[in-house]
């Protein structure tokens, strides 16, 4: 295990630069998560946005319930049901959001057919996202009851929905553990940044040493099989990655204690693990491209910082433009953060609610595999060149 041992000697020798990223992360995570506590909910609660509610369908318990529910959290403006008037109101920001129930909506919805509410909103607004969220929540809850309780009366339905939604709203607004969930969401989102930087830097530093032609040739002169050298390097890289992952997980347990031993805590930890594997794969690719030691530090900075910015680590994804998000979707960071956001908003864990989480994890894992394949091609290409 000579190679494996030297792997960590090299890491140890560069621990200064590597731990900078860990320290930045811990300070950032702890500071920002405590600053952000709860403020987001207060903000939303206090600044109710003005919306228009247009019902082109017959009056039903479902539509009335929706109207009442929205009315609790927004101000429904009294506005003429006229396309021109509505657009003008939106343009002048008299209202920020239009909910339009198309005719036949309720019947379709009850019958389980595809039924959609028409939404028009001011682009890129936070309140728009918030309203989207509410409409979706209401309809999803309604759907669950209609699907599971055949012939439920309209009255009962709205009653149940009301109860459910007010419950989650209360939890979100006041319960301490919900705030905690938010806290470790920040922690795990920021983790993406320093984990990326540490892995790129660590993997590149070591691989750079072993890929130096003189060292490589010298190793090839020895009776140690080339495959054994490579195995030890792979083992070293894996150990380094899992070590970094473990430090982040253990630190989160120290800070958030029993909150980490929950389903959502477990999902965060698993999500980070999948992300770690993808980042290892990317680091390995970069180590095969980058040619000098200073370039290594630069690559670590640029890639880690860049992907974190566009992936929604520092700025929430709903604040980023559509174009940025499209570009970001070519980084595992984007999918990782997306999963984190979903996990933190989940109140119920079942196949349906967890599906997007696992889909995103699968996408991140696919990144790992694809990048590894590219790396192998790059390595082969280089071999035939020299």
């Amino acid at each position: 295990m000579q190679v494996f041992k030297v792997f960590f000697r090299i890491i140890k020798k560069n621990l200064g630069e590597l731990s900078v990223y860990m320290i930045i992360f811990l300070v950032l995570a702890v500071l920002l998560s405590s600053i952000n506590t709860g403020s987001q909910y207060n903000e939303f609660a206090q600044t109710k946005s003005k919306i228009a509610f247009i019902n082109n369908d017959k009056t039903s318990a479902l539509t009335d319930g929706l109207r009442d529910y929205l009315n609790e959290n927004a101000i429904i403006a009294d506005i003429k049901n006229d396309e021109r008037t509505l657009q003008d109101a939106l343009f002048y920001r008299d209202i920020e959001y239009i909910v339009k129930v198309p005719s036949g909506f309720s019947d379709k919805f009850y019958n389980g057919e595809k039924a959609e509410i028409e939404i028009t909103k001011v682009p890129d607004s936070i309140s728009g996202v918030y309203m989207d969220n509410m409409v979706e929540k209401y309809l999803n809850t309604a759907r669950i009851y209609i699907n599971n309780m055949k012939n439920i009366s309209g009255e009962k339905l709205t009653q149940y929905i009301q109860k459910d939604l007010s419950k989650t709203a209360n939890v979100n607004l006041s319960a301490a553990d919900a705030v905690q969930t938010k806290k470790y969401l920040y922690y795990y989102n920021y983790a993406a940044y320093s984990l990326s930087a540490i892995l790129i830097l660590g993997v590149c530093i070591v691989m750079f040493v072993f890929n130096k032609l003189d060292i490589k040739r010298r190793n090839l002169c020895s009776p140690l099989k080339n495959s054994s050298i490579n195995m030890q390097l792979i083992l070293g890289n894996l150990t380094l990655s899992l070590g970094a992952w473990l430090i982040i997980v253990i630190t989160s347990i120290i800070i958030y204690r029993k909150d980490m031993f929950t389903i959502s805590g477990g999902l965060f930890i698993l999500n980070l693990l999948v992300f770690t594997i993808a980042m290892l794969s990317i680091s390995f690719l970069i180590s095969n491209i980058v040619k000098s030691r200073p370039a290594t530090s630069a690559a670590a900075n640029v890639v880690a910082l860049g992907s974190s910015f566009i992936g929604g680590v520092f700025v929430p994804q709903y604040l980023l433009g559509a174009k940025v998000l499209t570009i970001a979707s070519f980084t595992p960071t984007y999918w990782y953060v997306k999963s984190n956001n979903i996990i933190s908003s989940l109140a119920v864990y079942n196949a349906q609610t967890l599906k997007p989480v696992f889909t995103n994890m699968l996408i991140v894992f696919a990144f790992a595999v694809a990048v590894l394949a590219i790396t192998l091609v790059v390595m082969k290409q280089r071999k035939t060149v020299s």
Partner: protein
Amino acid sequence: MVIKVENLVKRYGDLIALDHFNVEVQEGEILGLLGPNGSGKTTAINCILSLLKYDKGSIEIFGRPMSPSAYDIKRNIGIIMQNVAVFEELTVYENIDYFCGLYVTDKSHRKMLVDEAIDFVGLNDFRKFYPKKLSGGLLRRLNIACGIAHKPKLIILDEPTVAVDPQSRNNILEGILKLNKDGSTVVYTSHYMEEVEHICSRIVIMDKGKTIASGTNDELKSMIKSGEKITIEIFNFNAKILSDLKNMKNIVSCEFADNHLIVKSMRGENNLMVLLEYLKSNNIAFGKIYSEPPTLNDVFLEITGKELRD
């Protein structure tokens, strides 16, 4: 036979780095591979070690064909590369331990070998130093220690004394003689003829990827026409002296530059007395005078028409 290389051809694109190169290394000898920079020494070594693919030829080490997967052959070779190959992140001790550990897995045995190697190259005061803190000469010594710690049967050194202070150079050359005395066969490449003359029992002279001559020091020198070289300091020189000398028998060449007359004589003839007599009878005043036996540079010069030194 420890190494047998036959008709080795290696091209880099259009450049033919090795052109039907042949060499044989006998057990127990120190074979010197002498040639100017770019003559193909390193390329030859790299091919012998299976680090480079070659276009033609065959290579046998310890009587068996050499290949990248000939691990039992590699186990018995110690290699000191032209470029120092050590880890910046490891200390002197750790570096030697790493490279020795590629050959020797037993820890306590290895510790003994590493300590011996450190003693051998005289780096005892620098055990905990990182390579960056070592001078050029000490770094070369570390490179050597890394290559020989496991006590290989065959040691290959590629220009181990480039950019080295005289003290380290002596340490290295004496070390190589000692390793040889202790039973190792040595292949030593260099473009310094004095070193090769000093330590090698047999010498192969290379130029442009070919072997141009080989043999012992004396054998090589007896191949060429010119014998001793006589240098005489003369202050009042005239052209007649040159033409007179050129007409004397046993004189191969003579030239004059910077107040020095350089005369090369035929091998085996002592021309010093004749020359002195000529100068005396013609009343030519002279200063310092010295006579040198032929060198490998003369051998190289006579065969290739150019100086070994560039």
